[in-house]
């Protein structure tokens, strides 16, 4: 772990594309995922619980599509691409905020 913290002098290489493959694949993926989500939920393919699970999972996949296909999340001029660290820790906090808030606000009443 400590080595990884110190890896900030190594020059990073960027990947040069001559045809926008990533963008096109990313676009197709995002469209397919979306259509699938709409179909799965709006056509009531499954019951409520599984549906929620599936469409949320699809939304999470879409994050990765945008991150890797469009946002060049792994690029950095030198050393470790610290923004990935920022995003991952951010995601932890985001999940904490939403999930814990929901847990708190459901008020499984104190007394029985």
């Amino acid at each position, binding site marked *: 772990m400590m080595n990884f913290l110190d890896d900030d*002098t190594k*020059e990073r*290489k*960027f*990947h*040069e*594309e001559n045809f*926008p493959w*990533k*963008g*096109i694949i*990313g*676009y197709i993926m*995002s*469209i397919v995922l*979306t259509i699938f*989500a*709409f179909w799965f*939920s*709006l056509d*009531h393919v499954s019951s*409520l619980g599984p*549906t*929620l699970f599936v*469409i*949320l999972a*699809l*939304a999470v996949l*879409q*994050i990765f599509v*945008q991150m890797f*296909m*469009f*946002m*060049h999340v792994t*690029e*950095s*001029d*030198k050393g470790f691409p*610290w*923004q990935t660290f*920022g*995003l991952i*820790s*951010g*995601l932890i*906090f*985001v999940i904490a*905020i*939403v999930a814990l*808030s*929901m847990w708190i*606000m459901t008020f499984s009443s104190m007394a029985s």
Partner: protein
Amino acid sequence: MSTTIDHTGAQHGHDSHSSTGAFVPLEYSDPDNAIKIFGFWLFLAADMVLFACLFATFIVLRTHIANGPDAQHLFDVKGFIEETFILLTSSFTGGMATFFMRHRRVKGTVAWLTVTALLGMAFVGLEITEFVHDVGIGATMQTSAFLSAFFTLVGTHGLHVSIGIAWMISIIVQLIRYGITPATARKVFIVNLYWHFLDVVWVFIFTVVYIMGVIHA
């Protein structure tokens, strides 16, 4: 870039970007630029938390409809499907703008950015239409907690998109005036980061707000 100048932000490796002969995109060619891009990533992380709070609020309040309409009766399925595909497409066209920028092709960059901004305007237009319709049938922010949360969450996203459009236009103007320079390249890259980020937020809005709203009240 002159290597005889010490940059504020460039104490290390300021003259090494071409030393290995590897490809370095223009927006990263100047260390000051690389720092700005990193700073923008940090801003996005913060913005993510901002939306998380709005989502948490919406989720907690989504059934609190008081005397107003519930989600099922309010949302127009066709409308949000349209909005979704428009925004997804604009994310792709924004990505194309970055691609052309990296190949230093001004015209292509400007063209793709223009398409992106236009799609963004179409999106905002649809959203405004939706809001106007809602208000017309008496579903306002003052009606219920659910609607307060709905308008604020979706409206905040819409406001972000609108700011993105204005920003893009100003960058298009700068591209036309100055061509592709390290500075304009960086701006193109950053505005697209912002744009893709808004796309991700929208994916969650259509999932959590719209789909979940219409499939169960």
